[in-house]
C-alpha cells in the first residue's frame, strides 16, 4: 500500500510540467480570463475556471478546480461575493497561501470600480443580495479601463521583471479599448431610453452605459426563480409599461423569458453575458460587439 502511494506520488510529480509563462493565472470568469490575457500577453498562462454556459454564482467545487488553484500565482476574479458559493472551498482545499484574501495573489475586479446597488439592509429574506453591491460589472465595458490598469500594476507587483511589458500591454489595450468604446457607444445610440425586462437583475451596469430602462426583472428577488403567479404580475406590469424586449444571459434557464416573450408578445434577447456565452462572443472585444448587435436586432423585431 505504502509503496503504491509513494509510487503514485512520484509519477504525479514527474508528469506535472513546469509552466513556461512567468505568472499562472486562475481566472474565475471568462471575462477576467480574457482581460488577463490582454494585459499579460505571453507572460501569463491563463486558466479560466468557468465558461459562458455556467452561472458564476453556482459552481461545483470540482477536483479539477482545486488542482488548478494549487499551482496558480494569482486569482483574477469578480469579487463582491459573486463567487462566495464555491471559491472559498477551492481556496481552502488547494492550500495555496499566495491566493489568500489580502495577498497580492488575490485580485478582485470589483475593488477598482464603484459598485451600484449597495444594499442598505442585509437580509437573506431579500434573496441573493451582495453586501458590496451588484457584482455584474462586466456588462459595462467602460469598467475594463480602470481594471486593466489595476491588473497590470498587480501583475507587475508579482513579476517585477516584466513590469514594463505589462504597462505597455495595458496602455495598448487602453488605446484599442477607447476606440472600440467610441464605436460601440455610437452603434448603440438607438438603444437610449428603451424599456426592457430582464430575467436576473444582472444588467444594471449595461443599462447605465447604454441608457436602457429596466421595467421589471423576472425574478421576484435576486436569485429566486419566478413562480407562475409572479410571472403573471410581471405581465401586468408590462401591460402598463411595455418593454421592447426581455433579456437573459446565455447560461440562464430559458423558460421564464420565453414565457414572457410569448405572453407579452415581445422578443426574447439572449446576451452572451461573458466571453463564450454565445458563438459571436469569442473574445473581450467581440463580447460587447455581439451584445450590441443582439440588442439592436431585438429592437428591430
Amino acid at each position, binding site marked *: 500500500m505504502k509503496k503504491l502511494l509513494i509510487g503514485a*506520488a512520484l509519477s504525479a510529480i514527474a508528469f506535472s510540467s513546469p509552466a513556461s509563462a512567468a505568472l499562472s493565472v486562475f481566472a474565475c470568469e471568462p471575462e477576467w480570463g480574457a482581460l488577463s490575457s490582454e494585459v499579460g500577453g505571453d507572460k501569463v498562462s491563463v486558466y479560466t475556471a468557468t465558461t459562458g454556459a455556467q452561472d458564476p454564482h*453556482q459552481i461545483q467545487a*470540482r477536483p479539477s478546480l482545486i488542482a488548478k488553484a494549487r499551482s496558480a500565482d494569482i486569482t483574477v476574479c469578480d469579487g463582491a461575493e459573486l463567487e462566495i458559493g464555491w471559491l472559498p472551498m477551492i481556496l481552502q482545499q488547494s492550500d495555496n497561501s499566495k491566493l489568500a484574501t489580502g495577498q497580492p495573489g488575490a485580485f478582485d475586479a470589483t475593488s477598482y470600480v464603484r459598485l451600484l446597488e449597495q444594499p442598505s439592509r442585509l437580509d437573506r429574506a431579500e434573496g441573493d443580495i451582495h453586501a458590496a453591491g451588484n457584482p455584474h460589472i462586466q456588462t459595462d465595458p467602460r469598467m475594463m479601463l480602470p481594471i486593466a490598469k489595476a491588473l497590470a500594476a498587480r501583475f507587475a507587483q508579482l513579476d517585477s521583471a516584466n513590469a514594463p511589458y505589462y504597462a505597455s500591454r495595458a496602455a495598448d489595450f487602453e488605446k484599442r479599448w477607447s476606440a472600440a468604446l467610441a464605436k460601440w457607444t*455610437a452603434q448603440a445610440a438607438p438603444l437610449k431610453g428603451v424599456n426592457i425586462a430582464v430575467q436576473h437583475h444582472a444588467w444594471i451596469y449595461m443599462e447605465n452605459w447604454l441608457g436602457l430602462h429596466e421595467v421589471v426583472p423576472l425574478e421576484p428577488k435576486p436569485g429566486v426563480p419566478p413562480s407562475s403567479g409572479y410571472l403573471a404580475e410581471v405581465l401586468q406590469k408590462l401591460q402598463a409599461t411595455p418593454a421592447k424586449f426581455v433579456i437573459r444571459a446565455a*447560461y440562464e434557464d430559458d423558460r421564464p423569458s420565453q414565457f414572457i416573450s410569448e405572453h407579452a408578445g415581445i422578443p426574447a434577447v439572449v446576451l452572451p453575458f461573458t466571453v463564450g456565452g454565445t458563438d459571436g462572443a469569442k473574445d473581450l472585444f467581440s463580447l460587447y460587439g455581439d451584445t450590441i448587435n443582439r440588442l439592436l436586432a431585438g429592437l428591430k423585431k
Partner: protein
Amino acid sequence: MSEALPHSGGTKVSRTSVLPSRHTCPRRNKAVALAVIGLVLLAASPASADEAADLAAIKSQLSALEHDYGGKIRSLESRLAKAEADAREARAAATTANRSASTATVAAQAAAQTAEASANAAQKAAAEAPPPAAPPASNNAFNPGIAAVLNGFYVASSHDTQTAHIRGFAAGEDARGPLRGFSLGESEVSLAANIDPSLQGFLDFSMKDDNSLSVEEAYIQTKDLPYGVTLKAGRFLSGIGYINERHAHDWSFSDAPLPYRAFLNSQYGDDGLQVRWLAPTDQFLEFGAEIFRGDAYPATGASHTGQGTVTAFVHTGNDINDSSSYLLAASYLHSRADKRDSEGHLFDGTDDLGILSVVYKWAPGGNPVVRNLTVSSELFYGHEGGFFDATAFSQDRFGWYAQAVYQFMPQWSFGLRYADLGSSNPGPALAGSLLDDLGHAPRAATALLEYDTSEFGRLRLQYTHDEADLKPNDLILFQYTVIYGPHGAHRY
C-alpha cells in the same frame, strides 16, 4: 477552567490588579483632582473680578476662534464649490470631447486632479469616483463567522427503530435509525475564523434532541505551509471515505447509508492530527494520513491503554468533459478497541477497514442550476478480530451502497439509494450473538424527494424499506434543514 486555577494564583491576580494604583504618583493624582475641582468651581461659582477678566479673555478668544474658523470654513466651502464646478466642467468636456473616456469615473478623477482641490473638496468629488481598492470584507471583520444549522424530523415507521439491530454487526449507538415521531434531529452552531496568517480555527457544537451538547469538531488548521501540505489538529471528522468528512446536514439523504452506520457508527470523528498533501498536478491528487486518540467507535478505551486509530487516504479526480467530473478515493482505517460496548456486549481487539469510493457528477454544460445529477458508490471491506464477550473470534465484513440524486428542475430533486451488508460466520461459540447474522443479509432501499426553498433551506420526504434486522421496517421521514449565518461553500 477557573476551578483548575490554583488558589494562590487567584490571589496573585487580584493583588497585581490592586498594586498599580498604590504605585502611581500620589502627587500627580492630587494635582489632577485639584484641577478638576477648580474647573468645577470656576464653572459653578459666581464670577469674582479676576474670574470676570478671565471669562472675558476666554470669550474674546472664542470669538477670535469663531472668526478664524468661520473664515476657514468659508474658504473651504468656496474651494469645494470651485472643485465641484471644475468636476462638472471637466465631466462635460470629457463626455463631449471624448466619448470613449465617458465614464464618470475617469472624468471625476481627472477633474479632481486638475482642480487641485483641498482634501475636503476632493473627497466630495470622489463620491462619484471609484473608491480606492477597498479591503475585501472577510466573513465578519474580526469576529468569527457564526453559522447555525437547524434540523427537524417527523418519522413514522412500522416498527420501533431504536430496538432494531444490524444483523451480524456489533454496532454503536448512532447506528440506530431515526427516532419515531417528532424530533429535533441534530442542531449545530459553528464558529469559524482565521486566527492569524498561519492558522484558522473551526468549532462546531452539536445539540442532540436529548438536550445533550457535544463538541462535534474543534480544530486548528494551517493556512500557509509550503509544498501543498496542510496540518489539522484537534477534534475533527476523519477524511476517510466520501461522505465521512461532511457534516450530516450536508449529506444527500437524511441519514447515513447502512455501511456507514454499521462500520463507523454513522461517522468517524475523534481527537487527533491530520496531514494532507496536495500534489502539484493538473489531475487532482491528494494524500492524507491521520492519527487519532482512538476513543470513538470502532475504537474505544484510549484512556485505559492509550491505543489509537490510524488512517490513510488518497483522493483523485478531474473533469471528464464540460458536463461531467469524477472523484475517486481509497481509504484505510486501523483501530483497536478495549471493552467496546454494544448493548452490554464487550469487544476487545482490532478493526481494519478499507473503503473505495467513486463519485460522478453531471450537469449540462457544467451548469448545475437547472438540472444536475450526482451518482456515488462506496465499497466497504473490513475485518474484526479479538474477543467478543471473552470469546475469541475473527470475522470478515463487507458492505456497499450506491446512490443517485437528480435535480430535475430548479429547487426539486429526486434520489434513490440501495445498501447491502454481509459478515462471515463468527464461529459456533458466538452463534446467536450480535455478530451472527442468522443467515440474513442486512439491506435497505431508500427513495427521496427534496424541495429547496433556497440554497439555505431544504425540505425532504424520504421513504426507506429497511431490512437491517430480521423484521423489515418501513419508514417515512419528513425533514427540514436550514442554515443561517455565513455558511461556507460546499465540498464537491
